[in-house]
């Protein structure tokens, strides 16, 4: 892990010194355990702040949107796929980017870990596949594979799909992963039960929009939630409005979402907002054989069609 950090710092320093880029977007240590923060590094002296460990879950592609500088960007598998999506959607140009690819070994779920301890966690360290959690008067060693973020546990593209230089050797991709187990479980419920499920899921939502703001795909100048003529969705916490918000937010990401988990990670209430995006991911895959962000030469599913597309819903 720290080897990756050292390599990221080495590459960044070199690029900045050579003047090939104006800044690096990477991670620095956060003020709380398990909360690394994105950071922009503009001078070689500050490169020392850059780190890499299992708390780099935020999707850095978010910070590239509309930038004019030349940027070195640190990208794990999912970030790289969102960079591809940005390239397709003209949010940034390829020649503005130097992509420092980081083959990823999964990020840890800070909420899950916090819920395992009664006392406050003061420090979280890691070694190989172990996570060491310390607080006042306790220390516990956890298996990393058991505390992965839910999206990372089922990730099948940990290696960057696009990069200029790698910060580590390619990692083995997870095989035989059942990505849609949770989706199928909901699909198998009768309608009333599904409604109850989503009503329960969303009842804590406070409409803070953290999930939207963390998402690299959300960059509309005026989000539909702010449109007022007509107003498609009310602003309060009426359950119909909340459901409509989540429905449309997910739908806007259809065929673009890479399941990076940034939305779920950002939610202050720990709401499983991937329940929406994963259904769309499954449908895009099953109906149109599509996986988002894998190639910049293919049009996304809602921007193209085939005359022989499935027609089952139409009479």
């Amino acid at each position, binding site marked *: 892990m720290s080897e990756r950090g050292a390599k990221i710092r080495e590459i960044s320093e070199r690029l900045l010194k050579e003047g090939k880029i104006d800044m690096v977007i990477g991670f620095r240590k956060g003020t709380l355990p398990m909360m690394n923060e994105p950071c922009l590094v503009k001078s070689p002296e500050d490169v020392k702040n850059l780190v890499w460990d299992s708390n780099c879950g935020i999707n850095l592609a978010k910070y590239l949107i509309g930038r004019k500088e030349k940027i070195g960007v640190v990208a794990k598998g999912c970030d790289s796929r969102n960079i591809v999506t940005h390239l397709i959607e003209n949010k940034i140009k390829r020649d503005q980017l130097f992509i420092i690819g980081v083959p990823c070994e999964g990020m840890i779920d800070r909420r899950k870990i916090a819920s395992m301890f009664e006392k406050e966690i003061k420090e979280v360290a890691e070694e190989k596949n172990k996570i060491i959690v310390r607080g006042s008067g306790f220390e516990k060693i956890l298996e990393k594979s058991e505390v992965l973020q839910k999206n990372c546990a089922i990730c099948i593209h940990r290696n960057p799909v696009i990069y200029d230089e790698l910060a580590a050797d390619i990692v083995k991709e997870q095989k035989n992963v059942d990505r849609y187990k949770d*989706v199928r479980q*909901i*699909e198998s419920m009768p*309608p*009333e*039960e*599904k*409604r*109850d*499920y*989503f009503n329960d899921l969303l009842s804590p939502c406070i409409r803070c929009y953290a999930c939207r703001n963390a998402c690299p795909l959300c960059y509309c100048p005026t989000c*539909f939630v702010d449109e007022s003529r*007509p*107003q*498609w969705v*009310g602003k309060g916490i*009426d359950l*119909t*409005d909340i*459901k*409509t918000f989540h*429905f*449309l937010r*997910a*739908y806007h990401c*259809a*065929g673009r979402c890479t399941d990076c988990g940034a939305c779920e990670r950002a939610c202050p209430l720990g709401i499983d907002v991937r329940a*929406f995006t994963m*259904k*769309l991911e499954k*449908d*895009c895959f099953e*109906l*149109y054989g599509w996986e988002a962000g894998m190639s910049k030469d293919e049009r996304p*599913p*809602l921007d193209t*069609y*085939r*005359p022989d*597309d*499935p*027609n*089952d*819903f*139409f*009479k």
Partner: protein
Amino acid sequence: MGFSINNQQSTINNPKWEPKIVAFLCNWCSYGAADLAGISRLQYPPNIRVIRVPCTGRMSPKFILSAFMNGADGVWVSGCHPGDCHYLEGNYYARRKLSLFKGLMEHMGIESDRLHFSWISSAEGTKFAEMANKVTKAVRDAGPANYFAKKISILKTKVA
């Protein structure tokens, strides 16, 4: 909202309940088919509220959600047959958009009988009337969709 079909909140216990169905019909085909059905004096239920759209490609999921929010019990979208779109490919895009839309709607618990899509050309007045009957029956059987309508508290107290 400019239009509202919320005024007569319906309940299961209301025996006079009639389903309210919003039909988004493409100007170049299904809308014409509705006209033709009328001219041909074909019978179809009055539960359908027609909104004309220039092409099914114009359909936004917001329209459908908005219909449900404002108290529709069912929504029907109909356009030109694949290959016959006035704008050549609007309905091909719509087919993808609406397929994903329906998948997510059903995932969240809307009954599949509340959402209908069809291809009806302007010469198919009979198909239009048949489809209108089918859609109305399906939505009637599904019952009132009050769980997706936005209930404003004043309205609630009035109904109670």
